[in-house]
């Protein structure tokens, strides 16, 4: 068989794609597929082959109140961290985008939590939250207020985790907002100023719409982080007390490596993947169309 010029070109293109495709396939798609398969089987005992059970694993999972507790925790965690960290990061970016004495220092200070590894940050916050010697309770004590058991009280622990996550993430998102703000030509502000446009109105009519692509990007990242980042749980609460701070990925970890229940872990993973896929699709179809890309 002789190769036409067109075929040669196609082969050439395919070869160029190969390294990336190989890596993606080996480390992303293959594990995904094997996870989906694993979630449809029950492992065999004592060397017996795995038994195909269809969607039974999912039924058991959905009947498990602990799964729903963890899912609810994760929802509260997402609702608590995503809008707060995004709003805070935008506010910080707007602040340090202006002329400000010691601007570089403030920018660095805002960005510092991002540079810290999550484990180190969680260790610092351990000391903030510690019941007797912790910074927060000391401060409250100085005002004559009784302290709280920040991480030990099931009603408070999740919110303590949320606060720490917002602190950790906002600086990172600020970086994207700051870059986007600096890409907005200053003449736009000047043109608006000449028309007596108020700062508030300029923000909502010009700055915010022009930041929309960044907001979408940050939103998706924040969403993924809300499910993906659980490092701090290992240090701060280990999912407790009484699963009050258990999040989906930590629950996956528990199932896989503490309870050695690989099947349940695989099943939860598939559920997480599906939920994220649905949200991402919504984002691309609904919000993208209303966003102005330059």
């Amino acid at each position, binding site marked *: 068989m002789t190769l036409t010029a067109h075929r040669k070109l196609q082969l050439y293109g395919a070869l160029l794609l190969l390294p990336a495709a190989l890596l993606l396939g080996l480390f992303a798609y293959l594990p995904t597929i094997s996870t989906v398969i694993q979630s449809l089987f029950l492992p065999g005992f004592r060397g017996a082959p795995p038994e195909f059970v269809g969607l039974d694993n999912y039924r058991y999972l959905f009947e498990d109140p602990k799964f729903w507790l963890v899912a609810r925790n994760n929802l509260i965690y997402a609702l608590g961290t995503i809008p707060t960290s995004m709003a805070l990061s935008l506010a910080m970016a707007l602040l340090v985008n202006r002329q400000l004495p010691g601007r570089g220092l403030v920018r660095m200070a805002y960005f510092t939590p991002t540079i810290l590894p999550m484990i180190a940050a969680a260790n610092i916050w351990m000391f903030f939250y510690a019941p007797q010697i912790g910074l927060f309770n000391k401060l409250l004590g100085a005002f004559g207020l009784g302290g709280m058991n920040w991480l030990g009280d099931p009603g408070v622990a999740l919110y303590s985790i949320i606060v720490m996550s917002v602190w950790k993430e906002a600086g990172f998102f600020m970086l994207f907002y700051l870059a986007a703000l600096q890409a907005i*030509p200053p*003449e*736009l502000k*000047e*043109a*608006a*100023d*000449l*028309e*007596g*446009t*108020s700062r508030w*109105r300029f923000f909502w*009519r*010009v700055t915010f*719409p*022009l930041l*929309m692509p960044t907001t979408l990007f940050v939103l998706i990242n924040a969403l993924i982080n809300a499910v993906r980042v659980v490092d701090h749980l290992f240090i701060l609460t280990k999912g407790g007390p009484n699963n009050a701070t258990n999040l989906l990925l930590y629950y996956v970890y528990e199932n896989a490596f503490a309870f050695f229940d690989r099947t349940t872990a695989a099943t939860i993973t598939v559920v997480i993947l599906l939920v994220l896929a649905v949200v991402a699709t919504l984002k691309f179809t609904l919000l993208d169309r209303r966003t*102005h890309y*330059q």
Partner: protein
Amino acid sequence: MSPSRIQLTGVSKHWGATTAVDDISFDVAPGQFVILLGPSGCGKSTTLRMIAGLEEASQGTIHIGERDVTRASPGDRGLSMVFQSYALFPHLNVAENILFGLRSRRVPRAERDKRLAHVAKLVDLAPYLARKPANLSGGQRQRVALARAIVSEHPICLMDEPLSNLDARLRADMRREIKALQRRLNMTVIYVTHDQVEAMSMGDRVILMQHGRIVQDGTPSELYNQPASAFAASFIGSPAMNLLPLVALDSAAVIDGDTTPVAPLEAAGGKLGVRPEDIELRADHEPGVAAHIVSEEYLGADTVVHAAVGNHVLRVRLAGRPVLAEKKSYRLYWASAKAHLFAENGLRLEHLAPRAFTAAQRSVSRPPLVGSFQH
């Protein structure tokens, strides 16, 4: 007093140790089209931005009408501005861009729609109102920026190099359109540019700036015919005016390296300025300074000839395409009224007149050649 009179008194702008604008004063009458002209970095844009309120003057006062607006906010000065980059809002369509200011000022909807329709017709944008700026050509974006300035119905419009992002042909069209629009709406316009063609063709009055100071303030023809300094002389006109150092020889000043007297002795050390279009090329025995041709540039309607005189090369602009002999000697002749004298510090020497060439300077007994070199 009219609300569109603009008055600057002793205005300066300092950035730390550097002075961008140094003690500038001028007074713009209502309906005037004033050009702030100068090379980049001369302070013309800073001056405009201080009038707009986008920069605060370090010293001096700015009046618009009878009001002192030196510290007033930009939106409170009753003027509009066209930016070099157009400053259109990329996410808004043409209509929204034009109406942005009116909505900020809470003009009622019916009034907005009326003004939009009127302005869109005025600048030929009616078919494009629903488009985003990214889908417009450079000229159309320029029109949107103009429309946004016009729709506010402010009597004053400031323009900061509005045509510099357009190609040459479009620029010529827009020059005429802006000028016509200004006449029709009787706007007071202050227009910043570094392009002397724009300044000459559009301005009622040109303020030429250098190093943050005003070099000359006058009509285009004053700038062309009586440049106040060597800098003004070289900045206006294309090709630029010839500026030749004068040295003393016997009882007169001559062009460095030449022997023909061209100016009184007191002018020595300064410079002689002659525009290329004011020089005639004549036969060797006629009055004028001796020259020989170095090179020529044919431009279609005319030819720029480079001719060596003494130690210097002059540009001479001749109509059409004259036939010139490279090795032959010629004479360069100009009417003494067309020549300018500048002192060593660059300022115009008003009290000295350049010398006229006389045939007696070098009597030649040959009969005159027939015809001129300029057919």
